[in-house]
């Protein structure tokens, strides 16, 4: 008992605040979580886990400026932190600063060669920069490192399939989407992408079924209006003008936004 108490007392206070922040976050108490992170950073301004967590909270709250400064500080304080390097690379990717993201993602990949996310974000960054061959290589690497049937695996497969679709490799693209659905049957993106592929192969009934299924899934990513637009076109080809008109009307009524 005394030993346990001593162990508890040995937890540094900044770590205690960080643990509290994690606990608050798990309960969706974002404000208190942020306060706890700040308390940890007041005690130790270079505490890497707290800097990374603060950056992630800031990203959620649409404050990329804060996220960026925390992550840059984290990689300066500890360049060997795989987490800090990866999140900085991911941050740049989310901000469309693909070139800036490559270096930290490469460092994260080198620091943790078994992790699938650094090559995944490298693949998406390379794809965005127009380097399809590098992107395909990184997608394959990410896929190989993520054999489990999880939403993460599904996201890697969907992104890979999307690139194959844009390269005109429709069979391979649909195969990736199929694997993605097997990995996560709640993946809205996977059903939407497979619907696109099936439409391209003139398999309109199956494409419509996938599109309708995608509409019922809550996952973020593909927007309702994207799916309505696709379904509108598919139903036109199926000679179902009423259904097509209904979906296209919903597409037109949806708020047009540049934010996904």
């Amino acid at each position, binding site marked *: 008992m005394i030993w346990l108490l001593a162990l508890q007392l040995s937890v540094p206070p900044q770590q205690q605040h960080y643990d509290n922040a994690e606990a608050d976050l798990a309960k969706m108490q974002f*404000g208190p979580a942020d306060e706890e992170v700040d308390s940890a950073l007041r005690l130790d301004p270079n505490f890497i886990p707290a800097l990374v967590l603060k950056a992630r909270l800031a990203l959620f709250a649409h404050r990329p400026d804060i996220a960026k400064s925390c992550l840059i500080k984290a990689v300066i304080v500890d360049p060997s932190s795989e987490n800090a390097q990866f999140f900085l690379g991911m941050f740049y990717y989310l901000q469309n600063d693909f070139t800036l993201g490559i270096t930290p993602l490469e460092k994260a990949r080198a620091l943790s060669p078994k992790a699938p996310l650094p090559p995944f*974000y490298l693949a998406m960054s390379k794809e965005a920069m127009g380097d399809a061959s590098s992107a395909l290589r990184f997608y394959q690497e990410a896929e190989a490192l993520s054999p489990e049937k999880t939403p993460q695996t599904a996201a890697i497969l969907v992104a890979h399939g999307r690139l194959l679709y844009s390269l005109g490799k429709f069979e391979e693209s649909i195969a990736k989407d199929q694997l993605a659905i097997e990995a996560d049957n709640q993946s809205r993106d996977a059903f939407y992408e497979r619907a696109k592929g099936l439409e391209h192969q003139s398999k309109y009934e199956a494409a419509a079924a996938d599109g309708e299924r995608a509409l019922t899934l809550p996952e*973020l990513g593909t927007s309702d209006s994207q799916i309505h637009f696709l379904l509108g076109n598919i139903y036109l080809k199926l000679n179902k003008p009423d259904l097509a008109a209904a979906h296209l009307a919903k597409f037109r009524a949806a708020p047009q936004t540049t934010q996904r």
Partner: protein
Amino acid sequence: MKHPLRLLAPTLGSAVRRPGPQKVIRFVAILGLLLVPVQPFLGQIPDAPAPAHRASQSTAAAGSGVSSRDGYVGDEACQGCHQEKFETYLRSAHHLASRLPSRTSINGKFTPGSNILRTSNPYLYFVMTATKEGYFQSAVAKFPPFETISRKEPFDLVIGSGRKGQTYLYWKGDALFELPVTYWTETDRWINSPGYPDGLPNFDKPIISRCLECHTTYIGSLPPPLNRFDRSSMVLGITCEKCHGPGRKHVVRNRSKIPLRPGEVGDIVNPASLSRDRQMDVCALCHAGPGTPKAPAFSFVAGGVLGQFLSLPDNAPDTPADVHAHQVQQLSSSRCFRSSSMTCTTCHDVHKPQRDVASFSEHCLTCHSIESCGRYSTMGSKILRDCVNCHMPLKQSNQIFLDTDDRQVKPQVRNHRIAIYGQNELP
């Protein structure tokens, strides 16, 4: 510059954990479809005024000022003798002001695709689910790249008849909170609850007794915090006794068939026989804004002087009152009201649903003739059923708004100041 999450902390779950007056005020200001700011609740609530301090009461039951439920019997006791009124009242918005959750009481859809509220935050959405265990709202937050956290709370109470919308509450022990997603009737879809900024997962808005004073018939309060209640004491909906006072004596006497002796004061409040001011007080409890409490919630009883329980804003006639929950002040500032003996019940029959706006015109025409209307010369008898739309136009509430899709939704509420409005003031 403060961090955004710090700025949002009051709405991110700290309202109860770290209570602050402004947080509670801001929440109450936009809670439901009837409620507005109530800062005074944050201070100590004084005891109910002693009966001796009250103005004369028209009945023995009126204005007892005691929040005990000893004399109350519930709607069922009224049904036997007042069957016709009872049946129509069951469909009224007052009766449906609060209910337990069920397939019929919740108007929002739970079918896949219709059960999702997406937000302006690309990392957050809400899902409404109906399961064998009950009805639930879940907030799902996605942290890039692949971390998901979610929080699920049950629909425990349904607030609102659904005419404009419904807000939902949940219990955490004996503390009551607002759920983050509301149903909005006009668009037939889920929307952020009043007071919740779009794009944030928040389940921690406390519900205080003044909210429930108008959305339920009764619930007993527990020691602070102010959103703690005795769940077992809850009487949902606005029931007969909210306007008629406690009915036990009345029921006992009538079941015993003991007639009132000549000169004996009745043992139940009949609002129609109250003085005009006392009649208006019955409605003003909930239709004149939140006011400043002078006594605990639920201590006012029909027939009493409301001013001894609640201090209400007294809008000058030329002050444009907000149309939400200030109907009594608006009506009181009308020439029709000031030059007649009309009350709310001149037009409203609270014992039944009244949805046909045009039909209210017949009440106007008991005093006015259509020939006296300035529009009669051009429109003729077509204006016969349009009195209300022109002289009591719909107006957007400035106190209730819901954030969604980067804009605010404001309900349209009937302006109760009866007047001649300019063309630019009409919807």
